[in-house]
Every structure is written in structure tokens, then in C-alpha cells.
């Protein structure tokens, strides 16, 4: 896998991450589940969890090999089927996580490639976004529609030359409301710029808030989307 296979220091910090996670009693499956839920509920694409995905893939591969061994050695059917179930469940999580991200990339491909959201993609996702999404889409739109429009209206990004911003680019709706829960109390939290809206976020209570206001908390992992 492209990301995460870097130098020794990267490896070391990955192991440290695993150890910390284990010490806190969270397995990789839990972390992957959380990443999956957050990704599903968030309107914009979130940071790619490269280390987590890599670890999950390794564990899944290991388990696949174990299951193969077991079937060959004629281990009890029940045990094999239980291992297989866990394997299927983890695979489902991983695949669903990746698919949700791909869906978002396809939807907002131009917007992502123009902003710093690009950095949230993994290398493979970036390749996908560039060659399979934006390039093909641009070519298609140009050939089928844009080249036949009058001069001044031929841009993919702007409605017309006189537009000041790129108003033809669909953007994710950051103002949408999301359901969320925090693990530890955040205390009084300001929801908007004018300071009119203060919410006291207590641990384990369910809130419905505007995504835009809690974006930072989601990124730092202090709040979970449900």
C-alpha cells in the first residue's frame, strides 16, 4: 500500500499508535468503526486514516491465511466459520469505509481538487480523483456540451466569464445538521461567530448540531458523529 510504508520512524510511530490504542482498550476494529460512522455522517470528506487502514488490511490478511490453514488442517467447522464471520465483518467495515469516501470524491471531485481537502485523500484516492474523475468528467463535459456553448460560457468552473467565483462547482453542505456525542465533556462551546449560541456539551449526551460549528472537534477526534 502506498501510504504508511515509509521510513523507520513512520513505522515506529504506527506501533506506538497501536500500543496506545490497545492500552486504552480500543481495538482497531473499534477505531475503524468510528472512522466509518464519522465518514458516513459528515457532509465533507474527512482525513484518510492511513495507518489504521494499513493495520486493518494486515490483520485481515493474517486472518485470511489462518482460515485457509485451518480449513486445510481440518479444524472444526464451527471454529472456522466463526473466524470467517469475523473476517467478513471486518472486511465489510473496511470496504464500506473506502466506498463512502469514493462516493464523496465522485460527488465533489472538482471542489476537492481545488481546495486543501485534497490533502485528506490517500495517494490512491488522489490518483483516482485525478485520472478517473476530474479528467474524464472534464473531457466529457467539454466534448458534449461546453464546446458548443457560446464563447464566455465554456468553463467548467464558472457559469460565465463574468462570474467572480467558481459557481459551477458543487460544494458539500457544511451547514447541515448532524447527530453527535462526545466522550468527554467539552463544556461550554460556542456554535457561531456572534457568540449568541453557547451549548454545554456533556459527555455521552446526544446532540443535534450544525456540522460547521463542530468541524474542529470532529477533526481532533473529541466528538463522534452518530
Amino acid at each position, binding site marked *: 500500500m502506498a501510504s504508511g510504508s515509509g521510513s523507520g520512524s513512520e513505522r515506529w510511530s504506527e506501533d506506538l499508535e497501536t500500543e496506545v490504542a490497545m492500552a486504552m482498550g480500543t*481495538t*482497531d*476494529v*473499534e477505531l475503524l*468503526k468510528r472512522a466509518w*460512522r464519522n465518514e*458516513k*455522517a459528515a457532509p465533507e470528506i474527512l482525513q484518510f486514516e492511513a495507518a489504521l487502514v494499513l493495520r*486493518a488490511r494486515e*490483520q*485481515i490478511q493474517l*486472518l485470511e491465511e489462518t482460515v485457509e490453514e485451518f480449513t486445510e488442517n481440518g479444524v*472444526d467447522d*464451527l*471454529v472456522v*466459520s*466463526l*473466524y470467517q*464471520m*469475523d*473476517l467478513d*465483518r*471486518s472486511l*465489510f467495515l473496511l*470496504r*464500506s469505509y*473506502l*466506498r*463512502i469516501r*469514493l*462516493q464523496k470524491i465522485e460527488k465533489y471531485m472538482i471542489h476537492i481538487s481545488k481546495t486543501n481537502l485534497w490533502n485528506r485523500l490517500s495517494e490512491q484516492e488522489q490518483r483516482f480523483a485525478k485520472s478517473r474523475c476530474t479528467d474524464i468528467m472534464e473531457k466529457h463535459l467539454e466534448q458534449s456540451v461546453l464546446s458548443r456553448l457560446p464563447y464566455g460560457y465554456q468553463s467548467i468552473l464558472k457559469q460565465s466569464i463574468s462570474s467572480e467565483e467558481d459557481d459551477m462547482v458543487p460544494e458539500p453542505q457544511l*451547514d*447541515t*445538521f*448532524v*447527530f453527535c456525542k462526545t466522550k468527554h465533556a467539552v463544556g461550554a462551546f460556542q*456554535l*457561531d461567530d*456572534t457568540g*449568541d*449560541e*453557547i*451549548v*454545554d456539551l456533556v459527555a455521552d*449526551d*446526544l*446532540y*443535534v*448540531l*450544525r456540522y460547521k460549528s463542530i468541524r474542529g472537534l470532529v477533526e481532533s477526534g473529541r466528538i463522534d458523529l*452518530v
Partner: protein
Amino acid sequence: MAGQSDPHLSIFSAPELEFLAEDEMVEVVPNIRMEALHVICGDFGPFFPQIAKVPLWLALALKKRDKCTIRTPEWMSVERLTQVLEAERESPREFQPLPFHYVEISRLLFDHARDDIPDIYMVRSLIEDIRYVRFHKVETGLETISGRTHAVKLKNLSAMEVNIVRPFMVRALQAFYKHDSPQMIQQPQTMGSRRPQVVDRGSRRDLRPR
């Protein structure tokens, strides 16, 4: 398929919620001996004919092959559920604490472990009543959403209830936010008599004084 549930509606499909619920722990009593399982999500076993804690998916797999009995979770007893139902009826603004996935867990147990649940018909009807009362509260609460609601607090709501109410609530809140926001800034800040009411309401409140 893995990513095909429509993201524009409830975000999670019912089977996906069930998938999440299946990771909750239950107690089982195996009737076989088995060595320890080292799966990705943890290590379980070794299994003897004594109480063991396993994830629900594992318990159901064992149960389907008749290799264990499932112990009904403590919150699923007739006494406990009757208490919860009464408490739900008595407090019109609060939701009683129940396991986050109580709907999914009870459904799965009803479907696959009927013989392990004492008084199953009673339990079933109690849970249905509880769901009904809670959802009624949710609906009443929805009526109080207005343009000045910038956040909603839903303490103790369960996963399935959240998922059902999500599309409507999100669209309603968003519509209010979009159409009402220029007026919000101009609203005079009248505190005083409204304050105590805000503190009173346990489960759902306008977090901004009217």
C-alpha cells in the same frame, strides 16, 4: 453492497444498524468446550460450560448451531422493563436510559433465541410499548423546533430512533436555519422568566433563551 445505502436519507440502513449492534457484548453459557478464539476484534474463550462474555454476533452464531444458551441481558427482564415503561410515561420530556442498541438487540434475540427469554410475550409487548411512548415524545418534541433552535439535546435516545428521525429533523432544522437566520441576530435577548423553563426541560430544550 457495502456503500450503497443512500447517504441522503437516514445515513444508515437498518441492516447496518444491526451490524453495529452485533458488536455489543452478551453473556452466553456454552454447552460445548472450545479453545480460545483470536479474532480481529478481540480474544474470546476458551469456552467451558460456564458463563462467558462474547459479542452478539458470536453468540448468535453459536446459538444457531445449538452450541450455547444466551442469557437474557439484565435490562430485558419484565421487572426492569415495567419500571422503564412507567418512568417513560411519567416524564414527558425525558427519555429513560436504555442500551443504545436496545431495539436491535431485542429484535435479534427474539428472532434467534426465543427459548432463552423468560416471559417472552410480556417482554415483547413491554418493549413495543416503550418504543411507542418514546417515539411519541420525539414527535411532540419535534413540534417545538423553531427558527431559534440552534441545537437540540436528545439524551438517552437510541440508535434506531435516531436513525428514523434523522432525515426529517435534519431537513427541518436546516430549513429553519436557512430562513430564520437573518432574524436571529435582531431578536432582543429576553431572559428573566424564560430562564427557569430552559433549565427545567430535561431532554430537549431551546438552548438559546427566547
